């Protein structure tokens, strides 16, 4: 099963602790927290922001959540330091990426500093709704094909934690985000007691005890992980991956029904549709189309039908 997976950098010296490093450089500390709606991303970011503020740092926290409730992407940028200008973290500038969901974590990896970024991620997999990462034909198969080991090759430090299960075992699945806060706390040099104080402000009164347990569990898990060798990857949470996508996408467009409203063009996640000279929809970039069906579902005039055609297996008789 998905036992805690150890980091590939077994020792993290005090010098390398990002807070200290950042402060030294008078650069802000950049923490990016991502997940999907309903997981508690904002709570993590609030706990961190409030703690940093109480320590005298200037804090900027920006978030997007209204856009993506229940199942859509939610992310929050927390930046703190002696002085912070911009509220958002540019690509490649995050010191720490905390992901409450595996695929979301992968989506944001590019934001981490390539050589020193720390990736803390729940192995929890929420198959995203129709407009998420999950795009190519045969899409669900492609969900987070990368294994934690593969991810680790690209990241300075990576921790893949089965936080949701750990929280479940504590009796409250919703405390998974706090397990991750526990993990995060080890990467920043704020005292544990202060973390706990900050946390208590942001969780419901009745759940303070379980959340503190979750926090401590997250911390101890990291401590343990740092001293353990890498184990075999746990395949159980993985969705079977075929060698190649067995489908090709074809759009059937009923031109006479299209009323040029542009909804499909604007909402296609791949931006591969356009209106032609007669202002009738057409697939401008077939190679980009993933068959996500968003256009089909949202066309008020039923003018698009997405077909996922099964591709004959290679070598099979024609």
């Amino acid at each position: 099963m998905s036992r805690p997976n150890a980091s590939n950098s077994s020792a993290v010296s005090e010098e390398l602790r990002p807070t200290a490093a950042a402060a030294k450089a008078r650069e802000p500390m950049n923490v990016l927290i991502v997940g999907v709606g309903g997981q508690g991303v904002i709570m993590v970011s609030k706990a961190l922001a409030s703690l940093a503020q109480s320590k005298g740092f200037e804090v900027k926290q920006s978030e997007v959540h209204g856009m993506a409730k229940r199942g859509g992407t939610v992310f929050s940028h927390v930046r703190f330091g002696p002085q912070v200008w911009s509220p958002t973290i540019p690509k490649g500038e995050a010191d720490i990426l905390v992901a409450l969901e595996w695929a979301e974590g992968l989506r944001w990896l590019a934001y981490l500093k390539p050589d020193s970024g720390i990736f803390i991620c729940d192995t929890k997999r929420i198959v995203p709704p129709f407009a998420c990462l999950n795009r190519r034909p045969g899409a669900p198969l492609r969900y987070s094909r990368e294994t934690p080991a593969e991810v680790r090759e690209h990241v300075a430090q990576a921790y893949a934690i089965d936080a949701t299960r750990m929280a479940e075992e504590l009796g409250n699945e919703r405390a998974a985000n706090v397990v991750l806060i526990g993990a995060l706390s080890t990467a920043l040099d704020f005292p544990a007691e202060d973390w706990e104080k900050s946390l208590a402000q942001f969780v419901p009164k009745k759940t303070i005890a379980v959340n503190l347990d979750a926090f401590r569990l997250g911390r101890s898990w990291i401590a343990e992980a740092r001293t353990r060798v890498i184990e075999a990857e746990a395949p159980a949470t993985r969705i079977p991956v075929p060698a190649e996508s067995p489908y090709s996408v074809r759009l059937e467009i009923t031109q006479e029904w299209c009323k040029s409203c542009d909804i499909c063009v604007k909402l296609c996640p791949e931006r591969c549709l356009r209106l032609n000279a007669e202002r009738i929809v057409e697939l401008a970039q077939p190679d980009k189309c993933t068959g996500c069906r968003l256009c089909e579902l949202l066309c008020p005039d039923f003018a698009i039908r997405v077909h996922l055609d099964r591709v004959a297996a290679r070598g099979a008789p024609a």
Partner: protein
Amino acid sequence: MSSTIVDSAAEFDVRDYLRKEMMPHFLCPGCGHGIALRALLWAVHELGMDKDKLAVVSGIGCAGRLSAYIDANTFHVTHGRPLAYATGLALARPDLHVVVITGDGDCLAIGGNHLIHACRRNLKLTCLMLNNEVYGMTGGQVSPTTSETRLTTTTPLGNSEPNFDACALAAAAGASFVGREVTHHVPKLKELIRAGLAHPGFAFVEVLSDCTEIFGRKNELGSSAEMVLRQKSELRPSAYRDTVNTPFRSNDLPTGVLSKRDRPEYGAAYRKAAAAQRADAAAKDGARTGKGEF
């Protein structure tokens, strides 16, 4: 290793449920009602409902026009009255699956009385109210759900009438299933409608739809696509909202299944009582005949 794509949309071709000879439909470009129609038909498909046993009763308005495009038994009745027609139809023909399509004006203004009594009666019906905040069909007048300050052709100064929370109304009137969803979330909307269709009593489903051509234009809400996206950014899930204490605003509406209650279904209850009465009468009659009455 088997590799199946879990994709209910793949098996569902909306055209199988449309009267194709009637297409393209008469709605304006980008009108949200078309998306709502797809969600309904998708739910019908998923439930494996027999088109012959499906009866769609709709009122007057752009929403009301949708029935004409559905390959089923369809009844386009008078303004505000589809629930009353449907009540007669469903009582007379319990073997049919009766669905009502109505607009915000149709359902809440002229038809408000029928709505509250349909909720109270709890006859098995599914009422799909397409709320676009406006009287679309008649050119954009204020409706009972128009948000405050919105411009319509009859509120040139901005609407100053408070608007209805139709779901709260339906729940208060006793509807045993109440839910709301936006057209943007087609699969979720389909799920909600499906739950409503499967519900064994009166189900009220409000669909937040966009009148792009009239309401959108008048209020400078941007293109159809922008209006759809606005649904995404302006609506909050019910989980985060205290429905009792938060005043109603159209951009702060709870969505999902909002109320569900276990109440006796009216038609079944009536038929049961009638059958008992008949059995009783037959017993008495038998006794009398026994005495040799001729």
